[in-house]
């Protein structure tokens, strides 16, 4: 009852010995995620997390030894492109990149290469994924969501937590929550995730949380119109954002009159999506 990650996920953490990697690996293990290996070049042979997780020098050796099938990346921005390419080269089908601040040029080459290799990338600048009760990959706080039939896809981090929290308060549960990331070039789009929710027998409804910049929400609207039978509720952040100013996320900017919140809201409403005026209204709209 999920997409992308579940109890069969065998997770590899790239950058496991760094501050962020260390902290969030502990949280993921505590949640019940099977973290089978870590990679930090130069630290191969060590064991971390109370001696429970082996560290390898390369992704390939970690995959060979442990059968890892998903990688999550916590390495600093300047090394992140290399980390994603290495994971794809080792044949990992799913790569989740948490790192923020990766140069756009790096992401163009990485995405190009990953497409050829057939690896799916979620992120970068993503909070990761959460399948409540089964598996958590990334940094989404696990305790604010319960199992259920609502699929969530979002470009944001804490705004997503806000929605998870609101759903939980209303007794609503989540099948899988996917943070696709706030960068201009990302691996997985709204459309890709909606397609998976549509196909997932345990997801009954979907929530799409978008924001200003780009046209991913408009493409999602086209997809919803042509292919979705399940109801979708949306929220778009940044209605009050001025044009030409980057609002924190590298991808959140209205440029040359495109990427406006009101255009995205209109596009979604036109295809029958109920769009919430504010994030706490989402549970009511799902009812």
């Amino acid at each position: 009852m999920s997409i992308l990650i579940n109890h069969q996920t065998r997770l590899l953490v790239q950058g496991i010995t760094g501050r962020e990697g260390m902290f969030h690996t502990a949280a993921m293990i505590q949640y019940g995620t099977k973290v089978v290996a870590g990679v930090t070049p130069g630290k191969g042979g060590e064991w971390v997390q109370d001696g429970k997780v082996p560290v390898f020098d390369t992704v390939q050796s970690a995959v060979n030894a442990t059968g890892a099938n998903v990688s999550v990346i916590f390495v600093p921005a300047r090394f992140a492109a290399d980390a994603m390419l290495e994971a794809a080269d080792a044949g990992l089908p799913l790569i989740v990149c948490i790192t923020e601040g990766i140069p756009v040029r790096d992401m163009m080459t990485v995405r190009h290469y990953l497409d050829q290799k057939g690896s799916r990338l979620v992120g970068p600048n993503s909070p990761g994924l959460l399948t409540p009760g089964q598996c958590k990959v990334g940094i989404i706080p696990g305790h604010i969501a319960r199992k259920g039939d609502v699929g969530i896809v979002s470009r944001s981090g804490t705004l997503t937590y806000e929605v998870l929290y609101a759903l939980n308060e209303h007794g609503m549960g989540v099948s899988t929550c996917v943070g696709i990331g706030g960068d201009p070039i990302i691996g997985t789009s709204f459309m890709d995730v909606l397609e998976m929710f549509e196909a997932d027998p345990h997801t009954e409804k979907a929530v799409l949380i978008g924001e200003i910049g780009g046209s991913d929400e408009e493409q999602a609207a086209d997809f919803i119109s042509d292919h979705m039978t399940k109801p979708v509720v949306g929220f778009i952040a940044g209605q009050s954002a001025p044009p030409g100013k980057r609002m924190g996320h590298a991808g959140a900017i209205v440029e040359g009159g495109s990427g406006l919140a009101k255009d995205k809201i209109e596009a979604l409403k036109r295809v029958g999506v109920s769009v919430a005026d504010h994030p706490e209204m989402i549970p009511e709209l799902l009812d």
Partner: protein
Amino acid sequence: MKLHEYQSKQMFSEHGIPIPRGRMALNAQEVKSIAEELAGRVVIKSQVLVGGRGKAGGIRLVNSPEEAEDVATQLLGMRIKGLPVRRLLVDEAAEIETEIYLGVTNDRSARCPVMIASAEGGVEIEEVARVTPEKIVRVWIDPLLGMRSYQARFLASSIGLPRKHWKAFTRITKGLFETFLDSDATLAEINPLVITGDGRLLALDGKMVLDDNALFRHVELAEMRDIDEEEPVEREARKYGLSYVKLDGDIGCMVNGAGLAMASMDVIKLYGGSPANFLDIGGGAGSEKVAAALSIILKDPSVKAVLFNIFGGITRCDEVARGILSALKEIKTDVPMVVRLVGTNEAEGRQLLADANMVTATSLADAAKKAVALAKENSAS
């Protein structure tokens, strides 16, 4: 990070793109001596990082070194869209036959660079795109293959450029793409690229925007940042790793996370208020960062109320509360504040703020309504 025209053109020139002879000057005396060197008519161009310099009177054509000195003195005292003119570019005047547009930027949905050309040069490309979209030609560039000659020829023929200029145009197009790539730019634009009376192609004006996330590998470019052109408060925010954008409302906002910060602004607006800023303290902010953020918000005299919306994940609510308290020890203020703390260590955070005379809220909607009411009350008093 935006580059000045003179900096952009310097980089174009290093990649084989012809630019007019000329130099940047900081005072009228220097302008005069450059004009003497160039001998003849020169153009004096204010170097400020906003568009519309020409219309604002910031670009002037002069006939003699003496006139150049006079005009430079006038320009150096000017403000263009609020920005003081501190640098002038002195270029030899070109005889313009035709004006073309040539630019390269990243296409988000195609996930690769796109080179754009138009026979309508010298005006804003957004305007051309809006009014006469058929006059814009694009080629998408494979990030692994780079700009190819046939693509440049396609642009040249599509904008009706006479054949005799194709070779020079191809060289310029490739040079522009290399400049874009080598400097990790998100925009590199020549507008206008002109054909001169004597049949040469010349980059008359240039604009570049660099990817801030890539500056770590371009130390020499990072040093080109003109800090005089930034809002002091935005510079201060950058120093603390805060993402801050000044807006024109009266409710200051402090939020963790960019999406939530935008959503908080939207909810303020929904309930009839107006946000004074966007401010994301980021994930896991310590009390020092929070204190810096609050002092930045309170420096804005238009702020009539402050809204804190913290959803603790990696960020701990008690750390945020400590930061707020330490800032309030330094700054005495009557500005009313509304706090909403949810998540990691929320009870400790609320306990710490219990004596701080702040309004508390449980939901975002509740917090926004209270902030809007307080801001109205405060402006009325």
